[in-house]
C-alpha cells in the first residue's frame, strides 16, 4: 500500500495556514512572556511551593512527552509489525513524535529554576539519576526518529528502514519506562514507589499518543481537504479503545497494588475518596471521560460517522490524560510525606497535612505554550516535507463502521 501512496506537502500561506500559525504564534508569545515573568520574579508567583514542587507545567510536559512516544506507535505498527495499512501514516506519526517531545521538553526546561543552565544539564551527567538518563533518552529519541523518518522518505535508504523502525520502537519503550521510573523510583512518595508505574506509563503513552495522532490526522486532512476513509478512522478508533482499556487496567493494577501494601491506605483513600479536586479528576476526568466513555464510543453503538467518533474519543482521551497526569503528579505531592508512620505530625513547614496547590495563570500559559510549540513544528513539518498522504480511502458521511 505504501508504495502506491502519494504524499504531498501542505500549501503554505493560505488563509487557513496563516491564521493557524498566527494563533499558535500568539500562544507561544504569551507563554514566553509568562516564562519571563516567572523567571524574573522567581517561582513564588506560580502556585508551586516547597511542598508541591512540580505543578501544572509538569502536567503538560509529562503529558506531551508520554504522548510523543505513543504517537510513534502508528509508524511502528506499520513497519515493525508489518501492518501494511498503517504504513501510509508512518511519516506523520514520526513527525508528531518529534514535535510532541520538543513541546514537552520546552515546557520542562522553561520551568526549571535556572533554564539558562540547560548547557549544564547537557554536560554534567550523574549516571545514577534516571533524570540524566532521560536527557540522553530524549535527545536520542529525536535522532533515532529523524533517521527512521528519513528511511521512510528516501527510497535509496530502504535497507535501513526496518532496522531504524526496530531501533525507534525499542527506544520508545525504554524512553517511556524511563519516564515512568521518574515516579516509580521515588520510594518516599507513597502515591508512587511501585514498579507498575513503568508499564502504566507505557499504556498511557499508547493511548495519549494515538489520540493526539487521530486528532492531528483528522484536522489536517479536513483543513487541506484530503479524503479520509471511514475504514482508517474505524481502525484507529478500535485501536484507541484497546489502548484506553490497557491504561484502565494498569491504573486498576496500581491502585490494587497500593491497597495491598500496608500503610498505603491513607494515600489511596485520599486519591480515591477524599481528595476533593484530585478525586474528582480521577473518577470523572481520568476514569469516566478519559476511560469508560471513549471505550463506549469505540466499541458501542454507532450514532455518528467513524471519523467523528474517533475525534470525540480522542478529545476525551486527551482531557482524561491531562487529568490522569494531574492526579499522579499533583495528587501524589498533595499527600504529605510520612516522617513518623503511625503518628500525627505538624510543623511550620506544612508537615502532616494535605498540601493545596492552585496553578497560576503563568503556569497555565507555559503549559499551553508547549502544546502550541508541538503544533507549530507539526505544521511546519507537513508544509516543508511530503509527510501527509494525498488521501486515505473513500469517505462516506453516514455510519459505515462495519466491514
Amino acid at each position, binding site marked *: 500500500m505504501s508504495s502506491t501512496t502519494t504524499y504531498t506537502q501542505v500549501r503554505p500561506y493560505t488563509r487557513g495556514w496563516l491564521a493557524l500559525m498566527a494563533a499558535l504564534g500568539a500562544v507561544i508569545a504569551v507563554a514566553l512572556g509568562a516564562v519571563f515573568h516567572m523567571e524574573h*520574579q522567581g517561582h*513564588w508567583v506560580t502556585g508551586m511551593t*516547597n511542598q508541591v514542587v512540580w505543578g501544572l507545567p509538569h502536567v503538560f510536559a509529562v503529558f506531551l512527552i508520554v504522548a510523543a512516544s505513543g504517537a510513534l506507535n502508528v509508524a511502528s505498527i506499520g513497519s515493525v509489525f508489518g501492518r501494511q495499512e498503517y504504513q501510509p501514516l508512518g511519516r506523520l506519526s514520526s513527525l508528531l513524535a518529534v514535535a510532541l517531545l520538543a513541546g514537552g521538553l520546552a515546557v520542562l526546561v522553561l520551568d526549571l529554576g535556572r533554564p539558562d543552565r540547560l548547557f549544564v544539564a547537557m554536560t*554534567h551527567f550523574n549516571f545514577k539519576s534516571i533524570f540524566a538518563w532521560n536527557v540522553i533518552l530524549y535527545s536520542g529519541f529525536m535522532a533515532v526518529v529523524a533517521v527512521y523518518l528519513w528511511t521512510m522518505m528516501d527510497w535509496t535508504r530502504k535497507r535501513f528502514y526496518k532496522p531504524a523502525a526496530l531501533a525507534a520502537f525499542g527506544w520508545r519503550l525504554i524512553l517511556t519506562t524511563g519516564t515512568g521510573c521518574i515516579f516509580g523510583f521515588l520510594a*518516599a512518595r507513597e502515591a508512587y514507589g511501585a514498579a507498575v508505574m513503568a508499564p502504566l506509563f507505557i499504556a498511557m503513552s499508547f493511548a495519549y499518543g494515538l489520540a493526539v495522532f487521530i486528532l492531528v490526522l483528522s484536522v489536517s486532512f479536513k483543513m487541506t481537504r484530503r479524503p479520509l476513509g471511514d475504514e482508517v478512522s474505524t481502525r484507529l478508533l478500535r485501536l484507541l479503545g484497546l489502548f484506553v482499556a490497557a491504561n484502565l487496567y494498569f491504573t486498576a493494577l496500581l491502585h490494587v497494588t497500593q491497597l495491598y501494601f500496608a500503610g498505603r491506605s491513607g494515600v489511596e483513600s485520599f486519591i480515591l475518596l477524599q481528595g476533593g479536586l484530585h478525586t474528582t479528576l480521577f473518577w470523572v476526568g481520568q476514569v469516566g471521560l478519559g476511560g469508560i466513555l471513549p471505550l463506549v464510543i469505540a466499541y458501542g453503538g454507532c450514532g455518528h460517522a467513524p471519523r467523528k467518533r474517533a475525534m470525540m474519543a480522542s478529545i476525551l482521551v486527551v482531557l482524561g490524560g491531562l487529568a490522569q497526569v494531574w492526579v499522579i503528579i499533583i495528587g501524589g505531592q498533595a499527600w504529605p510525606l510520612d516522617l513518623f508512620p503511625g503518628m*500525627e505530625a505538624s510543623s511550620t*513547614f506544612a508537615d502532616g497535612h494535605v498540601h493545596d496547590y492552585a496553578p497560576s495563570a503563568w503556569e497555565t500559559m507555559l503549559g499551553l505554550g508547549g502544546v502550541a510549540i508541538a503544533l507549530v513544528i507539526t505544521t511546519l513539518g507537513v508544509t516543508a516535507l511530503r509527510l501527509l498522504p494525498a488521501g486515505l480511502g473513500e469517505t462516506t458521511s453516514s455510519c459505515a463502521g462495519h466491514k
Partner: protein
Amino acid sequence: MINRRHLLLASGAILIAAPAAAREAGKPATAAQRWGLLIDTGKCGAECTICVEACKAEMGLAGHDRPRTDAQYIRKVNVKDPATGAGHSVPVMCQHCAKPACVDVCPTGASMKRADGIVLVDRHICIGCRYCMMACPYKARSFAHEEQTGQQPHLPRGKGTVEGCTLCVHRIDEGRLPACAEACAAKAKGAMLFGDLNDPKSEIAQRVAREATTRIRADLGLEPAMRYQGI
C-alpha cells in the same frame, strides 16, 4: 541575649562535643569522619525554637513572610501518638544520609555527598529541576523561590536553585559546632550532641553504641547521620 552563664555553658559544650580539630586549609574532607547529631527529644521543649532561629541567623534566611515558599533548613515537627496522646517536638533538618536519595536522582550531580558524609548542593550546577525535593523523604530541602537578600558569605543563596541544611559545614571545617547545636547548648537544654560517629572515642559514638537511638524513616535504608532519642 547570651548572658555569662550561657556563654560558659556554651564553651563547656564545645569542650565536650567539638570536633577533634579544624580541617587544614586545602586538605580535602575524608571518609575517616562521619559527622552526625544525636538529638535527645526528652530535652527538647515543645515551644523552643532556638535551634531554628540560630539556623536562620547563621544562614541568612531572611524570609518574605510567605510560609509556603520561604526556606526552612530546620523545623520543629510536633509528633503526637494518636493512641496515647503522648507528644514530642522534634527538630528535623537534612538527615545527611549515607545513601542520599537526592544525590541519586540529581541529574547534574549538583546534589552531592562530601567524603565525610555531609550532603550539599552545588549551586553553580543546580538547574533547579527540584527532583531532589521530590525524592527526599524528609522534605529537608527548600527551593529559592525568589531573589535572596542578606546572604552570608559562607552560603551564597541564589534564586532558582535548591538549598538545605549544610550541617554548617563552614563551621565544622573550622572546628566549630553547627549553629543549631551550639545555640541549643548555650540557650536551651543542650538536646543536640554533635560529633564524629566514626570516632569510637567521641561522645556521640559512645552514646550511640550504648543507648537506644532511632533514625527517622530508618525503613527506607538511607542511613541518616541524624539520630534521635525518645521517639
